[in-house]
């Protein structure tokens, strides 16, 4: 409360220290990843004026009501509020954030402070002014920095934080253009083939019934449901972390995404991934999944998927992304049958395999040979460009056939 010098000055005088502080507080939240426009800062100042600050919690809830509009922003707001409105040095630190040439020197005071908030409070030290622009990007990227506790739970192989950030930023940028599937629901369309009598007659009333303008409609389109089935066994451990981010990005980008993880058993993580906050989502996932980096039983887990889930999630023309290297502890036992069943139950089955990064990849392992004949498309996913390629492939079906033929040819040879 040190920074609340004199409540009355904030209420009466425009541009008083209090208003400035609120603006800085909004900037802090923005830097920590809340999407707050300049209008929000003005709203916040006005709200505080209207509410009239008598008590600390009044201020808390006043700002909360203006600045928070999603449940998962609550914790971040809470921490930021308590740090900001107590620490007298905060303003200086904020200045250091706003003026990159000045070095931030303070240490984070709270050990359990949100990673993002800490990053927002203490931007990298010793950066040159020239890197001003780059730095802002970095602050953006910290949005999605995954918290340490996640790492303690499982040995995701060593992807450096920098790589992670890059991957995440890139994934957030990718626009997932799934080939829309035609629905039977009709929607207005000036060049449609069907006549929309309801709209026509309603329009005719505008002319008093003398003219009936012909309105038309045609079937609408919407992206098909997407089912991601991801291998988290030991052989995939270098990738599973990135794939989780990938799945999270997908789940939050569009509706009707179902995600499953499998190693020795199958886990449905769709609900957990629907959390907007990536840290929370991944923590929830890691608590739920018992078999990180263990063995693989592709055949058995796919059988479980087919039996328990396929009817529930593969309806309405679903596209399945199968993320696995195809290396199976059980040597592909029962796999051909289950792959065939899976392939027949979905609209399109795309196999994403990180092993394909090697040009000389040959499908020798039994599991790989079992999967190959039953996929519509077959693509590498080991770096960002391959993921961008994937996004492209999902919107252009024609391109897929060639690749498949190529690979099947290789298999036959």
């Amino acid at each position: 409360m040190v920074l609340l010098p004199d409540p009355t000055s904030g209420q009466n005088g425009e541009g008083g220290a209090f208003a400035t502080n609120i603006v800085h507080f909004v900037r802090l939240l923005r830097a920590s990843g809340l999407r707050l426009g300049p209008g929000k800062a003005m709203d916040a100042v006005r709200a505080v004026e209207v509410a009239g600050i008598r008590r600390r919690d009044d201020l808390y809830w006043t700002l909360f009501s203006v600045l928070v509009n999603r449940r998962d922003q609550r914790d971040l707001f809470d921490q930021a509020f308590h740090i900001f409105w107590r620490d007298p040095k905060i303003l200086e630190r904020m200045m250091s954030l706003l003026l990159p040439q000045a070095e931030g020197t303070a240490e984070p005071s709270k050990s359990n402070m949100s990673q993002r908030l800490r990053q927002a409070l203490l931007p990298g030290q010793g950066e040159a002014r020239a890197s001003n622009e780059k730095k802002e990007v970095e602050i953006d990227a910290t949005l999605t920095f995954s918290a340490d506790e996640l790492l303690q739970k499982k040995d995701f192989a060593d992807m450096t934080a920098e790589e992670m950030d890059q991957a995440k930023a890139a994934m957030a940028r990718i626009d997932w253009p799934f080939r829309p599937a035609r629905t039977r629901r009709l929607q207005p369309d000036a060049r449609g083939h069907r006549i929309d009598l309801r709209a026509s007659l309603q329009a005719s009333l505008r002319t008093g019934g003398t003219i009936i303008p012909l309105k038309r409609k045609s079937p609408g389109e919407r992206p098909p449901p997407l089912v991601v089935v991801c291998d988290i066994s030991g052989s995939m451990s270098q990738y599973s972390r990135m794939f989780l981010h990938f799945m999270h990005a997908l789940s939050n980008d569009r509706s009707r995404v179902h995600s499953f993880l499998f190693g020795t058993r199958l886990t449905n993580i769709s609900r957990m991934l629907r959390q907007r906050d990536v840290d929370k989502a991944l923590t929830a996932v890691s608590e739920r999944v018992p078999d990180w980096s263990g063995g693989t039983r592709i055949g058995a887990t796919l059988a479980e998927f087919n039996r328990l889930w396929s009817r529930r999630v593969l309806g309405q023309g679903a596209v399945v992304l199968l993320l696995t290297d195809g290396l199976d502890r059980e040597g592909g036992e029962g796999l051909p049958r289950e792959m065939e069943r899976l392939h027949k139950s979905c609209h399109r089955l795309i196999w994403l395999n990180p092993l394909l990064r090697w040009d000389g990849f040959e499908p020798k392992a039994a599991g790989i040979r079992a999967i190959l004949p039953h996929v519509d498309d077959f693509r590498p996913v080991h770096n960002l460009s391959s993921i961008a390629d994937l996004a492209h492939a999902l919107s252009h079906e024609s391109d897929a056939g060639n690749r498949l033929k190529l690979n099947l040819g290789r298999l036959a040879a």
Partner: protein
Amino acid sequence: MISRSFALDCKIMSALPESIDAVETLLSRGDYVADRSLATTLFLALKMGRPLFLEGEAGVGKTEIAKVLAATLGRRLVRLQCYEGLDLSSAVYEWNYPRQMLEIRLAEAAGGGDKEALARDLFSPDFLVERPLLQALKPDPAGAPVLLIDELDRTDEPFEAYLLEVLSDFQITIPEIGPIKAAEPPIVIITSNRTREIHDALKRRCLYYWVDYPSAERELAILERKVPGVQKRLSREIVGFVQHLRETELFKLPGVAETIDWTRALAFLDKVSLDPETIDNTLGVLLKYQDDIAKMKGSEAANILRQVQQDMASLGI
């Protein structure tokens, strides 16, 4: 399935049952053998005026509940079969376009005149074609109808969202006319085969019940009601066999409907007891996937049959 005279008898007693026992008796009068848990949920749904959301595998008798309820209570059954692309004009209401156009022509012939009056007339209830949801809100001398929304999972999410208003307020808003509210809310039964998840917001407004496969005794009772005149021994063998099948890992487990079909099939073949050959020849009545049939055919089916017969022998049947 329910005789005409019986349905007429029931017309008289359209009052809702007053206890869980009464619900059980009611269903059993309609030849539906219900679990106590189902009777309880149904009683609550009727008492609280909440929609009943029934989920379960295909062929466990979800739709039948609504039919039996309508017949035994003597209420009108309004059925909305869902399908992909179901929209307002086939689910709720539609305007009678030919009549509307005729009306416009008549107005023209009469010399144009009042345009606003024409607009009012064209979209009056006279020109309204009612579809199931709207029909269900209409008052009925026998009492509020039973509204069956069948296989809701086949529609898309926008339609579900529309149902929210209908199910919570039992009210439909037609822009040209205004809101239409049910004087007495209909008894709503929603079924889903779970080919996709129904949104939580819709489930929240309903009482939920998972219709499971019946226990052996209940299945036996069902067979007795649905296929009368079958030898006790045969129906016991059938139920034992089907119950065993449900414990194996099949892609599609046989439902009650399949059991009934199979019993009828065996009755047509004049069988008094099961034997491996008959099972092999009629397995297609029970299992509907080639993989499942291939897995069960021959020795596997014979093993199960042997076990069923042993169990029965040990029980002294």
